[in-house]
């Protein structure tokens, strides 16, 4: 049973130009993304700047309205609701079930509120009584590893990592069914604990920390998913050259492996002028004629392992096993 099924999600932005402000093109920030998150699962969405990962997250949270596609959310009562077309008003009762952990713990906490009130705010808004609220805040502080005295202190008294824990405690206050975390790197030890955050979409810009938190990983490039696999398979046997490039480019924390770092070529393509065929082909060391012409679809290459590469079956790519 999936908590979330994203089907054919697209978010396009018009490029306007000229006197009449006519639409002259479209930036396909997200272009036909399919994802599902099962109960108790953490899915990581990984890619470099401009790949569309944050746009996907913002569409799921309905901070953005998708251009196309469905966002099927399984509610507590067993109903499946498509979030994509809902109005703000219709979304309101669902908001408590889908929570966000922000990338920047400084910007997301009100500096004038005590930590206890910050964590209790969603409870208050949803009409939880004061005695229950107090008990819940105590439990949440304990859960994320903050001392009980934190309740009466202000955010500025805490380090970045501790502030992120405050944000996590607030996100978990209402027992959400889905938590979307945008690179919450400094409180990883908390998010890694499966008993705390069980339903997670984890958005990250590289593969380093993802290995520790995710069950499955989706790699995005220029608005599309190029590879999706269980974490061990993706790192051990990548089936898309871009995933292999990300793994190879990551600095290895071992001076003996200095020469093992592979420097990828080229730059991320301009999303307003995406390359023809496979968007990765200008940077791909394995590109052949078909890659320049035909866009590869995401297809199953092994059990639970998907790749959008024409040559996924013939290439042997280096992983990190």
């Amino acid at each position, binding site marked *: 049973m999936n908590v979330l099924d994203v089907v054919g999600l697209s978010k396009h932005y018009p490029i306007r130009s000229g006197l009449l402000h006519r639409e002259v093109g479209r930036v396909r920030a997200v272009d036909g993304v399919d994802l599902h998150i099962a109960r108790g699962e953490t899915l990581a969405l990984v890619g470099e700047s401009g790949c569309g990962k944050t746009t996907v997250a913002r569409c799921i949270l309905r901070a953005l309205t998708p251009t196309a596609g469905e966002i099927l959310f399984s509610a507590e009562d067993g109903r499946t609701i498509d979030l994509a077309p809902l109005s703000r008003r219709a979304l309101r009762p669902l908001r408590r079930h889908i929570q966000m952990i922000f990338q920047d713990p400084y910007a997301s906490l009100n500096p004038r509120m005590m930590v206890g009130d910050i964590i209790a705010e969603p409870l208050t808004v949803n009409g939880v009584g004061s005695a229950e609220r107090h008990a819940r805040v105590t439990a949440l502080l304990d859960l994320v590893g903050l001392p009980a005295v934190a309740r009466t202190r202000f955010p500025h008294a805490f*380090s970045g990592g501790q502030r992120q824990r405050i944000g996590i405690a607030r996100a978990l206050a209402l027992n959400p069914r889905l938590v979307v975390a945008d690179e919450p790197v400094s409180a990883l030890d908390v998010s890694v*604990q499966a008993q705390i955050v069980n339903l997670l979409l984890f958005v990250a810009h590289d593969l380093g920390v993802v*290995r*520790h938190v995710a069950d499955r990983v989706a790699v995005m490039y220029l608005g599309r998913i190029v590879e999706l696999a269980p974490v061990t398979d993706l790192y051990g046997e990548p089936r898309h050259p871009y995933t292999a490039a990300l793994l190879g480019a*990551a*600095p290895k924390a071992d001076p003996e492996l200095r020469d093992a770092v592979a420097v990828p070529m080229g730059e991320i393509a301009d999303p307003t002028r995406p390359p023809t065929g496979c968007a990765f082909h200008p940077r791909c060391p394995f590109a052949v004629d078909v890659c320049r012409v035909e866009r590869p679809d995401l297809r199953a290459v092994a059990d639970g392992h998907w790749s959008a590469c024409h040559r996924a079956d013939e290439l042997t790519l280096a992983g990190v096993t």
Partner: protein
Amino acid sequence: MRPILMVEPVLSVRDLAVTFHQDQGNVRALEAVSLDLFPGRVLGVVGESGCGKSVTARAILRILDRNGAITAGSVLLDPGTPGELNLSALPAESARMRGVRGKRIGLIFQEPMASLSMQYTVGNQIIEAIRQHRDPGKAAARAQAIRLLGEAGIPRPETRIDVYPFQLSGGLRQRVGIAMALAGDPDILIADEPTTALDVTTQAQILALLRRLQRDKQIALMLITHDMGVIAQMADEVAVMYLGRVVEFAPVRRLFAAPAHPYTRALLRSVPNMRATPRQRLATIGGAVPQPNARPAGCPFHPRCPDVIPGRCAVETPAPVPHGREGAACFHAAVTA
């Protein structure tokens, strides 16, 4: 006791102390920091935010914020030579100090936009930097700027020279930042988190570029980072900093194979492991870096240290690592070599 290298350093920081004056009182940002930069070598400086690694760089270049001052120690350029110059004794705005910045010591920032103006083209800014140091004339400076941009790996430098910084990607902007830093042909480079703002594929490209330029020109590179992966990939020697002190100094292989300071060990344990088993918990360093105005007595790391010696570490401060030697400022670790 032998020095690590037989070559003479080109820059020696000795017992450097920096204090910032704030409303809440004085904050000691650096205490007795000693470092050496050698031609053709990369010194990695690593630590969490607030450890003083950027303050060290800014103190060397004498570009500390107005409320910061060097209170002790020295920064010796060309130490032991007849031309030895103590930068910490020069007025920050003196002509000699301005001559050192750019011409002897180049600086690469985390965010290259910090060193680039939005209102001028890339070329104008590099040409100006070149002409500031030794003016070869306008046409020659332009040719040199194109050559620098090409050296920094910018494709089609002869057309890119006329674009504005905001028209470039983050990776290209950092390449321009590197070209700017090289405009005065310095023999020392300080790179402060040069790849922190970049994507992983771009980071690999920029690090490879820095490594190549540093080797080709035999530059003494001080590379400041919080990332142990970058250290492993780039550094020859490493200084680990914590709360304004160098707590461990070692050649890079020794540091990773046998870290001597509990803080270094904690830093290494907290690096994400690409070979981790699924959901393997990532170790973190317990507690948080203390506020700089609430520096713990004794060893500054003792409140977070798993190996703390009761009755000692909270009272006594371990001696700093003697400059030029490898070792750790910890009662558990004897200074070696």
